[in-house]
């Protein structure tokens, strides 16, 4: 992976994404192979896993990260990571305030509040700020929008957009729509890498994704449902073509009936 690159790992729930994320974040040792960081394996060859060996430049936003908040104030929680980097107080404060504004939380208003007084969506933003304050070289997002309602989800996605180009981002998700935002997409099935594709081509293969249990955009879910009811659609490339194809099928049926 290159600096500033965004790659996504697309896989159905239970396909082993979280396990992969933990391995990529140097939190578990892979059973076979190794994860390299700057061309080296920081975990070495020893069997035991020392937390000190982890490169601090790799951080992860875990699934449902809002459950991991614990400090008395939002400020303290976001500062938790940077404090472990042994930075000076002024630098910690700068990073916390910057991270809070990056997730569009007003530092004046929220930083002294208890994280538990915030809404679920806001808490997840605080969790993201906590990770961003580490100023990581590699940011791993494990299903960053899981369990969010559609509106909060959209808001959260707009927060992630400006992160592009700063460090490398590895985005694990079950949604084809989210995965398509990346430059490279790895489709992950049964803990194995099934395909490598570029973002624009991903949905061309929507039939295979549907079989693999991946969540598709609404139009493609509709198409998959139509085909499941025994009405094949013509092979189509893009969303507008598929849209027309569905309309055609509907019209023919309607006239016949």
């Amino acid at each position, binding site marked *: 992976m290159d600096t500033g690159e965004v790659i996504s790992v697309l896989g159905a729930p239970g396909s082993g994404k979280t396990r992969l994320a933990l391995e990529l974040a140097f939190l578990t040792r892979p059973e076979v192979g190794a994860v390299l960081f700057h061309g080296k394996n920081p975990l070495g060859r020893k069997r035991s896993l020392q937390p000190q060996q982890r490169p601090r430049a790799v951080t992860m936003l875990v699934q449902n990260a809002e459950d991991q908040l614990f400090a008395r104030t939002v400020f303290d929680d976001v500062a938790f*990571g940077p*404090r472990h980097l042994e930075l000076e107080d002024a630098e910690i404060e700068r990073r916390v305030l910057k991270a809070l504004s990056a997730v569009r939380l007003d530092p004046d208003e929220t930083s002294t509040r208890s994280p538990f007084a915030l809404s679920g969506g806001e808490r997840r933003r605080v969790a993201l700020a906590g990770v961003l304050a580490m100023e990581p070289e590699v940011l791993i997002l494990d299903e960053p929008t899981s369990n969010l309602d559609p509106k909060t989800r959209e808001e959260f996605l707009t927060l992630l957009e400006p992160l592009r180009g700063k460090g490398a981002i590895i985005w694990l998700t079950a949604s084809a729509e989210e995965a398509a935002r990346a430059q490279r997409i790895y489709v992950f099935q049964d803990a194995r890498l099934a395909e490598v594709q570029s973002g624009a081509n991903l949905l061309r293969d929507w039939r295979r994704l549907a079989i693999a249990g991946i969540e598709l955009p609404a139009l493609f879910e509709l198409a998959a449902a139509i085909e499941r009811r025994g009405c094949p659609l013509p092979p189509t490339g893009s969303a507008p073509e598929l849209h027309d194809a569905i309309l055609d099928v509907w019209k023919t049926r309607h006239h016949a009936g």
Partner: protein
Amino acid sequence: MLGSSPRFLNFEPGDSIRHRLDPRTKLLAMFAVIADALIASVPGGIIAAYLLGVVIGLMALHLLPALWRVLRPLLVLIILFGLIIVVVTPGNAVIHISFVVPTYDGIALAIRLTLQTFLIIYTTSLLTITTPPLAVADALQWAFGWLERVRVPVRDIIAMVAIGLTFVPLLIEETQKVIAAQRARGADLGMNALLDEQAMGALMIPLLLANLRRGDELAESMEARLYNSGPRTSLHEYRFRRLDANAAAIALAFTTAVAVISFVLLP
């Protein structure tokens, strides 16, 4: 997630004689052996009690590796306590090593206590290895249900214990998840975390919150399914069979033998 999570109390599914025994028989036999271990204060009694343990063990040879996995960590503790007893019991000194004074009485007491403790742990582990936690709970309810008459909420206590036991693996998984999450944002959470107030908070608060939430949800879903709204019947009715009678007879015979040896023959 991080390494394999230990299965709590290591219930091993299987079809040995131990598995087929009624959980109530196993519970009573366990009490019998514990009683044996406690009253066996003389060498003869301890040997007799251990013989019973061996007989029970022979009934479940293939379980011994699993049993060893449970006992091994506890063995270290038992031996450690034994060593402490050796040096803190007053009596005839064996040797003086500055202020450490092991005594003959201490050695005798330590051997007796470690043997007794080991036997108790061995039998309890045998019960939990061959009996699903819920069956243990049923047996406990059967054995102590009469306390309900004197307003001891036996059923609730047992429900709590049973739920607690089933949730331990989940708790372990949850702990590993929190550790991974906090490490991912820079915390060490190694052994030195125990001394670091903030690191402890980072671990304990999310864990506590998750469990309170889970407890709430569980209570609601149990009440939604009419828990606590009247007498409950059981899906699995237990029945004593010939096997149980035989097992009970063996346990009773040994207990009597141990009692006779300890109190009558060698008072």
